[in-house]
Structures are given as structure tokens and as C-alpha cells.
């Protein structure tokens, strides 16, 4: 890593968790990075940066370190989300019976319904953490602010594709509403950190900003964001979005 701010984040993780951080490149993945967090039998946090993103490696590593700092604030109780199989299957079936999924073959509609359930649970799990980490990285890594702005610009641009009729009409209305509410909360989070208001325009003009504000308020109420506060925020978001029956928390001790 070339940026002292990234080195600082790595050192913070190593001090807080007691495990070394190792950074590597990986090819053939869709995400910007993969992280294999340490456990007693595997004594390193491995951050694998997608080799297509190597120009942004410093920022990506800082973000992954930020996630570790929040999730591992208590190494004896590191949270992970687990899908509740029965309620998830029931919800997938309900959405499979709604338009536009009901117009598909039974098999395909169930698969797509399941895809939406898993996608929304992943989103409710990841976005509060992402906003919390963005705030942390913005404060601790001023040298990475350009890369951070670039990363959020690309992500928010991508998320706003949901308003195109092609994407919007491909999901049940309820799925669309929940997804857009969380996207709006992310745009509000970034706007609050950076002062950039442009990303809010699609949500304002379509009347979805209010639902995002409710989620964002729940996150703002939990500051600073440690692992306990983080699980609390996810639960609050899930309740507001009626997703709380679809998962449970699994806590593990990762003490060296």
C-alpha cells in the first residue's frame, strides 16, 4: 500500500484484532475485493483486491479495514447474518406470486423471488455498515477522499439505474420500494459526509427521499458505530422495511 492513511488503518486493525493484515490481488471476481477474516486456525486477515481495481487498492483496503474495525470492535462477539430458511422461502414464494414474477414460469419465478429475498437481506446488512465505514474513512483518511468520492459516484450512479423502467418493472413493487429506500439512505449518508447533493436528485424527484430519511435517522442515532450499534441499526432498518423475520445473528469469538 502506498498511502500512509491506508497503512494507519491496517495498523489499527492489527492492534484492535490481534491479527496481521495481508493484502493480495485476485482476478475473476465481481466485487472490488474479498475479505477472509482471521480466526485462530487462520491467523491473518486476508484482503484480496480485484486486480481490475488495483488503481484504487489503497481506498479499497482502507474500506475493508474500516469494516473490520466496526465488526471486530468486540473480537469475542463478531456478528454475521444468517438467513432464516423457512421465512425466507415463504417470502420468496409470496413475491413469486406477484407481478411481474407471476408472469414467469413457476420455477423461474421462485428462483427470482429467492434472489430478491437474498438481495434485500444482503443490502440491509451491508448498507448501514457501508455508510458507517464511509464516515470513518473520510475522517481518518483525508488522502483517500478523491478515491472515495469516485467510488461513491460510481456506486450511486449504478444504484440509480433502478429508476429506469426496464429495471423498475422487473421487480414486485414492494421489492422496489424497499430497495430504493435503502439506496436513498446511502445517498443521504454520502451527502451528509461529502456535501454532495446531486445524488439525492433522483430520490427527491420520485418522492422516495422520505423513506430513506427514516432509515438514515436510525443510523445517525447509533453513533459511534461499533459492532453492537451496527447490529442494532440493521435490526432497526429491517423492522422499518419488514425484513426482520428473514434473518438471525450469529456471533462468534475470534480472539487470537
Amino acid at each position: 500500500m502506498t498511502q500512509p492513511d491506508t497503512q494507519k488503518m491496517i495498523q489499527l486493525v492489527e492492534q484492535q484484532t490481534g491479527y496481521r493484515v495481508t493484502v493480495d490481488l485476485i482476478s475473476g471476481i465481481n466485487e472490488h475485493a474479498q475479505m477472509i477474516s482471521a480466526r485462530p486456525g487462520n491467523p491473518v486477515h486476508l484482503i484480496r483486491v480485484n486486480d481490475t481495481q488495483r488503481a484504487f487498492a489503497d481506498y479499497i483496503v482502507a474500506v475493508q479495514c474500516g469494516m473490520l474495525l466496526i465488526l471486530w470492535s468486540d473480537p469475542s462477539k463478531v456478528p454475521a447474518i444468517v438467513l432464516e430458511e423457512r421465512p425466507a422461502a415463504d417470502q420468496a414464494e409470496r413475491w413469486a406470486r406477484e407481478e411481474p414474477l407471476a408472469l414467469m414460469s413457476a420455477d423461474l419465478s421462485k428462483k427470482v423471488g429467492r434472489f430478491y429475498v437474498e438481495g434485500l437481506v444482503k443490502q440491509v446488512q451491508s448498507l448501514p455498515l457501508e455508510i458507517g465505514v464511509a464516515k470513518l474513512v473520510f475522517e481518518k483518511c483525508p488522502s483517500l477522499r478523491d478515491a472515495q468520492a469516485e467510488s461513491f459516484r460510481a456506486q450511486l450512479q449504478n444504484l440509480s439505474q433502478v429508476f429506469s423502467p426496464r429495471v423498475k418493472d422487473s421487480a414486485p413493487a414492494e421489492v422496489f420500494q424497499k430497495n430504493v429506500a435503502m439506496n436513498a439512505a446511502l445517498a443521504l449518508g454520502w451527502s451528509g459526509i461529502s456535501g454532495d447533493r446531486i445524488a439525492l436528485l433522483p430520490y427527491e424527484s420520485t418522492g422516495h427521499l422520505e423513506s430513506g430519511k427514516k432509515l438514515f435517522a436510525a443510523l445517525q442515532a447509533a453513533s459511534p458505530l461499533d459492532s453492537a450499534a451496527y447490529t442494532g441499526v440493521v435490526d432497526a432498518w429491517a423492522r422499518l422495511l419488514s425484513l426482520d423475520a428473514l434473518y438471525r445473528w450469529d456471533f462468534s469469538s475470534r480472539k487470537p
Partner: protein
Amino acid sequence: MGFFEPETMTPFSFQFPLADFDLTRLPIDPDLLRGDASMLAAAVQEFYRESFEKLGGSATVVVRDGVVSVAWQPGSGDASAQLLQHAIGLLRQGNASSAEPILRALIAQDARNADALYNLGMMLSDQGRLVEAVETLQELLNFLPEHSEGWTALGVAHARLNAIPEAVKALERAIEIDPRNAHALRNLAAIHGKESPALALPLMQEAARLLPGDQRSQYGLAQCLLQLGRVEDADPLLVKTISLDPLSEIAELARTERSRIAQANLHAKSGGGTRPDAVFFCLDALQKFQALGEEQTKTITFEIAMLGRQGLDINDPSKKYTLRSLPGQFTGLHLVSLLYTGMQRIAPNTDAGIDLSRELAEAKALRSDQTNPPKN
């Protein structure tokens, strides 16, 4: 004592077609913006309002009839200098489309704004608009012929156009004006290096000396030395190249080069035969991994692989390495032997970066002898 009047700040304005605005620079889907004219106008207005807010003063942005008009009244100071810095900041962020109208507006206001011409020329060259780049940089050099960096940028643009004699001439002129112009030295060396590494070497040595933190210069010098057969001088530079930015493409090239050198050295030192010390280390690895089991083998192998990305010195006999997953102190060759043996157990088709197949085969034969001693 007289009165003094506050300095009058001249508003700075520029216009450009809305169609020229690069919508990909906004955090909103470009197709969504194209389908919603009012959102598009609001987004572009907000973009410039935010940009100029950071500079202080007040900005008026109007989007009308397909044209964006920006007028900025600076709060204090030199408006041109502030705008130039703003444009350079945009270029650093990769936002050339927003920087270009500002640079052109600065040049329209003052055709001899050297910094604006230089940055516009560099931007055009980086965008591959090479003919425009050459014209812009020549404009600069017509009235400022001692601008060493301008000659460097012109040389690079010529080189990108494959106009090599012109490139060499421009870069030599840059160095003539400023013998410490490291970028000119490095670029001239890169051109000569293809044909004559001996000619390139002193230029690259000087560039690497002037830019000790520049990965390209360090790697360029290492390459020159390798081409001249000076492997021992090149290796520390390859190590430095990796340490400067371990995840970069140049670091990857340096790693590959080091693996090739290590491979050549390893067997050259044993006259092309097997290395007895590596055989011993492979034997040690076989015994250790047998005792520790698959999970621990993976952990150790993985840790060495990660450590190895910084480069393991296999020619140094000192035990200078430690692992978290295995107690003791190790030489570079010992770790490479552990790595190779571990990889053969857990992922035999993966390239370990070095070939110890003969050493491992001998170690396996020895181990077989140990576990099944010959009967008398």
C-alpha cells in the same frame, strides 16, 4: 494617509454545449438524466455550484437551450490562479471533461497563460488527442521556449504518435534546459532502452537518483541493468520497485522478473543439478506437513505465499524470516521449499513461482528410504 479601494474582482465566465458535459461524472445514471431534462439541468447546475462553492465567492450557473453558462465572482484573490488550481484538481480526479472548458476559458482570456496551455496539452495527450496536444504544447513553447516540462510533454506526445526523432529532439531540449528534469531523462531513456540499453543507462540512473520514490524510474533502471546482464545490480531495484507499490502492475512485472532470476540462480549455483540444501528443506517440509495435517499445511503455505509477494531472498543464507503459523527462524530458500512442498500438496496445478520439482522428488525418495529402510 489616503483611502484605498478594495480590489475589484472580475467575474470569470465560460460557456460550453450541454452535450459536451460528461454525464458519467455524475452520481446518476446517464440514461436516466437523458430522459429527464429538468433533472439533467438541475444536476449540471448543482455540479458547478458545488465546484465553485469550494472556491469561495458566488457562482451563477444557467442551463438553457443546450448551453451551460457559468459565471463566477471570486470572493478574493486571483481568479485565474484559483480556477487553474481547480482545473488541475479536476484533472487529478480524472475529470477532464469538466477541466477542459475551464482551461480553454483561461486561455481565451489570456493566450499566454502558460500553466493552462501546459495542463491542457498534457490532458489532450493523456486522452490520445495527440495532434491537438502537439499543437497546444507548441503554442506554449513558441512564447516560452525555455519551458523544460513543456518540451517533456511535447516529447511524450510525439513518442505516443510514434514520431521518435521528434520525440528525442524535444526530450533532449528539455534536458538541455534543465539537466535535472527527471521525467525527460526517464522518457528519453525509455526510447533509447529499446535499441541501446547502454545509451539509456546513464539517463535512467540519473532519473532514478532524482526520483527515488518513482516506481517507473526504479523499474526502468532495473530493466536497463538486466538488459546489460547486470543481474546483481538489478535485483535490489526490483525489490524496491515492489515495495514502492506492491499491488501495481509494475510490481507484478518486477515479481515475475525476480522469479525468473531466482530460478536461474538457484540451479546455476549447483551446476545445473539439484540443490542439496533445497532437498533438505523439502524433506523437512514433508515431515512437518505430514505431522501437522492439511489445515495447518494450508495456513503455513498461505502465509509464506503472502510473505513471498514482497520477495524472498533465496540467496541469503541468514535465517531472517519468521512466520506466525510456524515457530522458528528461516532462510529464504527454506521458506520457498516449504511453499513449494505445501503447494504441491494442496494445489499442485498452481504456479509456485519457482521450480523445485527435482529437489522435492529427491526429498520424497529420501523420505521413502527413511520410512522403509533397506533390509540387510
